[in-house]
């Protein structure tokens, strides 16, 4: 057996590979949300005053939104009971000591966690050249390669450290792309977020390595609310990777993150995600509610923001990585594979908001639905009045594996400038019978043929991922398919 199939085999037996939890001491505050809780989180984080005020502003706004359950966001093509926001703990940190100065101080159980996750924290993996920030539950536990990056003037650290050491930058940019007023979960996040990653690339610097954050929810009954902020100064470049897992639990866990990207003139940010939160069991029990707001702004002329995602996890995914194309000649891209099985529900897509002249955007979305899952693409392309010569090309393809799942496409095209060229194409189909016959005539079994063809269907997206990540993505996809075909 080659290593690929061994890997498949192990995981097919365990269904959800990352479904363990780690036995480590943790500092978890009681469930519930109130102004006191916000103040408590803020105190634990040693927030400066401005940060506390910012949290309270967001909390008051959220309280207003949350006071009427009729007003909870319901527009997505997903179904779930109203979340009891008082039944969640909003802060959980591993160990008694919330911050670590070196890896030696980290609980060995935690290190095992990272090893199990395949996170390259130890020496040999460090040679792989990936700088990692890992966030467990709500707290950033380790950031590698900080010194190497510092030589280039690159700041890559936990959000907490950023607030402490780079307060001006955080104050300037946090909330500038996703203000707390943006939506229900953005407000909640702005009030309770406990950590996350911060990344700053100075002008003219091409980040010499991929930056990576791994997120994991570990503690039961907790939510995870992290923020990521990436600022790319003029002419800089960074490729940023994000991976997520959570233990298998019978109750639903809430993940409400915010990611903000600012790309200045001629800067380029490539943001890749492999999202593999626990999806719940086959009957739909448990799993993560993944309500995420991700948005970037192409602030300067000639800047570029590219989102690539492989979404296989979460009971519910509600996520629209977007780009505001403000600078002239700026470029926005969205490449996505969303795979749902069991009772998973995904409502995901993007928004491309064209403001500047000669801006262009590309959206390629591949949705695969299996079992009794529902998979929706929802995307907005808006060409504003002043956005002369804007271009958009959108392609959404859906594939259904089985006759009890759903595949849906909800595009919104809002064109307010006659020089726009906007093209949208979408198809829905199953694996082609003639293609299956062709593969099988060459001796390939039905199951393998389906896997081969589905991987082919996603190929266009997977090639957008950085090399190492692409390998991982392919494996993950193969594992997911293993459990849902045949």
């Amino acid at each position, binding site marked *: 057996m080659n290593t690929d199939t061994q890997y498949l085999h192990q995981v097919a037996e365990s269904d959800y590979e990352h479904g363990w939890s780690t036995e480590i001491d943790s500092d978890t505050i009681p469930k519930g949300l109130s102004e006191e809780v916000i103040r408590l989180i803020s105190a634990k984080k040693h927030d400066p005053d401005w940060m506390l005020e910012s949290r309270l502003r967001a909390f008051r706004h959220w309280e207003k939104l949350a006071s009427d359950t009729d007003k909870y966001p319901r527009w997505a093509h997903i179904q779930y009971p109203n979340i009891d926001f008082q039944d969640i703990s909003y802060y959980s940190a591993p160990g008694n000591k919330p911050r670590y100065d070196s890896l030696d101080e980290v609980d060995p159980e935690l290190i095992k966690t990272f090893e199990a996750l395949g996170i390259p924290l130890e020496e040999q993996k460090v040679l792989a050249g990936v700088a990692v920030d890992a966030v467990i539950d709500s707290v950033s536990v380790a950031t590698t390669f900080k010194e190497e990056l510092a030589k280039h003037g690159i700041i890559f650290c936990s959000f907490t450290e950023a607030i402490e050491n780079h307060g001006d930058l955080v104050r300037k940019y946090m909330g500038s792309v996703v203000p707390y007023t943006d939506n229900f979960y953005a407000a909640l996040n702005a009030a309770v977020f406990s950590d996350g990653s911060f990344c700053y690339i100075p002008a003219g610097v091409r980040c010499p390595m991929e930056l990576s954050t791994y997120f994991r929810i570990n503690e039961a009954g907790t939510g995870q609310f992290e923020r990521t902020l990436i600022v790319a100064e003029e002419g800089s470049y960074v490729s940023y990777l994000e991976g997520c897992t959570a233990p298998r639990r019978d109750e639903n866990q809430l993940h409400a993150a915010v990611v903000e990207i600012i790309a200045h003139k001629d800067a380029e940010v490539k943001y890749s995600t492999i999202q593999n939160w626990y999806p719940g069991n086959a009957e739909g029990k448990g799993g993560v509610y993944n309500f995420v707001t991700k948005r970037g702004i192409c602030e300067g002329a000639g800047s570029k923001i590219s989102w690539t995602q492989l979404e296989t996890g979460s009971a519910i995914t509600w996520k629209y990585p977007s780009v505001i194309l403000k600078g002239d000649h700026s470029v926005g891209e969205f490449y996505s594979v969303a795979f749902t099985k069991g009772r998973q529900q995904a409502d995901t897509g993007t928004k491309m908001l064209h403001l500047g002249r000669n801006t262009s955007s590309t959206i390629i979305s591949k949705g695969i639905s299996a079992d009794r899952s529902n998979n929706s693409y929802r995307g907005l392309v808006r060409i504003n009045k002043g956005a002369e010569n804007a271009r958009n090309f959108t392609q959404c393809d859906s594939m259904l594996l089985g006759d009890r799942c759903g595949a849906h496409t909800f595009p919104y095209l809002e064109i307010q400038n006659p020089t726009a060229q906007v093209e949208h194409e979408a198809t829905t189909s199953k694996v082609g019978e003639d293609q299956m016959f062709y593969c099988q005539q060459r001796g390939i079994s039905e199951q393998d043929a389906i896997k081969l063809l589905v991987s*082919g269907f996603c190929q266009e997206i997977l090639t957008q991922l950085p090399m190492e990540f692409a390998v991982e993505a392919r494996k993950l996809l193969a594992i997911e398919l293993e459990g849902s075909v045949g």
Partner: protein
Amino acid sequence: MKSILNIQGLKASVEGMPILNGVNLSINAGEVHAIMGPNGSGKSTLASVLAGNEDYEIDGGTVDYLGTDLLDMDVDERAREGVFLAFQYPVELPGVSTMNFLKQAVNSVREHQGLEPLKAAALLRLAREKAALIELDARLKQRSVNQGFSGGEKKRNEIFQLAMLEPTLAILDETDSGLDIDALRSVSNGVNQLRTPDRGFLVITHYQRLLDYLVPDFVHVMVNGKLVRSGGRELALELEEHGYDWIQDHLPE
């Protein structure tokens, strides 16, 4: 001589419409059989039925392949047992890389034969060798299976796969259609090199010209789902001269 295929009274229909009306045909190891016939006579249906296409209903008859009932096997089983169909219209597989596809196909067959799977390097070497044999542009191997290939490239790719999979029975369904004369010559040349004493060929064609390059041992003429005449190489030339009307006019009552 060792019998590879023995078809007796094979009848098949699609959506209630009979297409094959009792085909009898026997192929031995080392032989090349050609089936000719007018459009709609059922030639390609025979190829599809032998490969295991489930769109066709089997209404009667038997097909013995190396002593076992071919009709009892699924399409991929037949392929692993050594039945290869070079398609008339090879389908495109977007995003599926040719090498990955070949790896799965070759190793499925090898596993079935109790052989070790080929490692990537060995497979590459084999592919290079076989590609040279049929003058396949090396760049085609880098692309998705058949995607964006010209008609000729697709046909060449079929023969390339034939070479890679080394089947016992190779069925070529109108491999000549859509080929210009140079391509026809090089594809035929490739096929000729794949003729071995233990392999049988069933070549389906509308035109005689393929048989100039790929000289058959036997020629059969199919009309209305039956093989109505059989003969040697000269039968093809007769057909070329007189056309299919001639054979229809001279059918025995």
